[in-house]
């Protein structure tokens, strides 16, 4: 899942970037409103973490322009402004969620995952397919009683294909959602990831839920 963090505190940027990456998100981080708006418009993010007090362009104004431009990106406002009116204003302008600082990192991750599920219209965090049991809330994949050990990227590929169930996802789209803009990964990396994923899932003694549509991409039916 690809997340954009728009936050001017460099220290918070660093910890959020590391924490979200380690939680399986592809993360882009920007430090001001203008740059944040440019990224948000063109980045194809699954969710945006938005601070309100930003230099150059406030978070509220950024959100207003984003919505005025027709963007339906899921936005979570992360702000030290904790007044009810401020939260209402943010939500009325089109934010999908509001979290006040200081916050629990675990809660932020849980809310982001809920936002992503909402984006792909998947209410349940649990999926069953080809004997696999995938809990997107706990990021745990099991077959029967046995847990399938996946790396964060492998898990992210599987989760994304599940969320896009029934639709072909090409390699570029997978790349976009797996790696930040600044990432250097190529389509080969996707192929390697899919290969490793299939190996681990198949190695667990069950069927492979991932179908390959040659020249088009991958699909989970």
């Amino acid at each position, binding site marked *: 899942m690809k997340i954009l963090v728009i936050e001017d505190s460099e220290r918070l940027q660093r910890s959020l970037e590391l924490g979200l990456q380690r939680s399986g998100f592809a993360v882009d981080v920007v430090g001001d*409103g203008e740059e944040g708006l440019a990224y948000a418009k063109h980045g194809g993010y699954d969710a945006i973490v938005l601070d309100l007090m930003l230099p150059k362009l406030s978070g509220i104004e950024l959100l207003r322009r984003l919505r005025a431009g027709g963007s339906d990106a899921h936005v979570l406002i992360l702000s030290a402004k904790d007044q009810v009116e401020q939260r209402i204003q943010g939500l009325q302008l089109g934010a999908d969620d509001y979290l006040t600082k200081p916050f629990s990192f675990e809660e932020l991750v849980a809310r982001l995952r809920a936002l992503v599920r909402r984006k792909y219209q998947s209410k349940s965090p649990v999926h069953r397919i080809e004997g696999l049991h995938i809990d997107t809330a706990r990021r745990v994949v099991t077959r029967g009683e046995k847990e399938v050990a996946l790396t964060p990227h492998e898990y992210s590929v599987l989760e994304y294909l599940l969320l896009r169930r029934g639709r072909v996802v090409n390699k570029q789209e997978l790349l976009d959602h797996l790696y930040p803009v600044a990432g250097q990964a190529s389509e080969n990396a996707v192929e390697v990831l899919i290969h490793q994923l299939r190996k681990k899932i198949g190695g667990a003694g069950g069927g492979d839920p991932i179908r390959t549509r040659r020249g088009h991409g991958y699909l989970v039916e």
Partner: protein
Amino acid sequence: MHSIRRRLMIALAIGVTALIAGAGLYAQGILARRAAEQFDETLLGKARALFALTEEEEGKIELDYKPGFLPGFEREDRPDHFQYRLDDGRPLVRSPRLAPTEDLPHSVEFPAEPIFREGPLASGATYRTVQIAFVPRSKGPLLPDRERGVRGVILVVGSDRAPLDRLIAQMRWTILGPAAAAILLALLLVWRMVASGLRPLDEISRQVGRLDAENLGARVALPRAPSELAPIVHQLNALLTRLEEAFHRERRFTGNVAHELRTPISELRTLAEVAGRWPEDSATFYGDVVAIASQMERIVADLLLLARCQAGVERVEPRAAPLRQIVEAGCSRLRDRAQEKGSSLRVEVAEDLAAASDPDKLAIIVGNLLENAVCHSPSQSEIRCAATREGPLVRLEICNRAAALAPEDLARLGEPFWRKDDARTPLGHSGLGLAIVTALAKLLRHEIAFTLDPDGTFRARLSLLSSS
């Protein structure tokens, strides 16, 4: 506690009662005296009538009185009486109804003016009498009295004064009765007028009573305030406005403090949570933790300094403050940061300039002003610090470009945590710099002024007394 209403009521009640009662008593007194005079005139008229009927002929005194001539002397009930005496007091004749055992009060004297007396008769009735003395008219030739050998006569005429007393009593009740009613009416009127006159005060009191910390935006509204109360209402509303502003400042300040601390706490918590879960990747976070601690330490230190300055308890050690040295020290601390922005710091302060100040506190002021200038000026710009002597004063000016600043922002520059940009300023800024400058300048009795040139040049001017 004094009550204006009670005092007014008591004073007005006493005044009105005294006025009406006094006027009534005075009128009653005048009328009673007039009635008594009238009574006396009537009595004297009767005496004169008798005098006219009294004649002398050949040494004999005759009273030409016929029954029915003066009926007052003959009536049964409380008749008038008269009594003639010779000038030596011997009785001559008396009215028919005057008992032989009774005498009207008299004196053996021959006054020119009539003498009025009062006294009870044997019947118990109080009679008012008039005594006149005269020489009876002569029926013979008009000779002098001595030659005629005629003696004088004393005539006393008396009338029961009961009718006069009744009249006076009647007049008293005729006047004092309505006066008492008038007093009651006047008191009622006074009560209504006092209540009506004090109603605006009651209204103000009611409205003020409803004010509390939750509705300080309310104002005392008295659309038809009397001219005496209009300035009070105006001043009260002005006071409420100042109070509301102070409350808002206080709340804003508290909110800002919480906000300023919430940001580093938030950073610290996230750093700790992430570092706790992925410790192998978080070695660099320790530097951030130290920076956060330093930032919070500075916020707290600045807040304490600000609070001490505002409370006037920050210790001041006045002595000569070498301006050049202080400015150079401030600049050297900021030169690297200015160079990072491609900006420069220019100092135009003479070596020998010194101000009567507290050098340590002045260094904080100058340091904060310079830091503010470096932080908020655009890149590639010049920050100028100059000092000039003007008479007994030294004026220190720090100016820099501040394109984002508007003239209306100047009044808020000294407000704690006020920022033109809603976003955080670069690291290390607590948002208290200019608030501390303002508070310290006040504490040191220096004058600080912030101005903005039309071309966007911001000037902070500090006026100090020269130490020389």
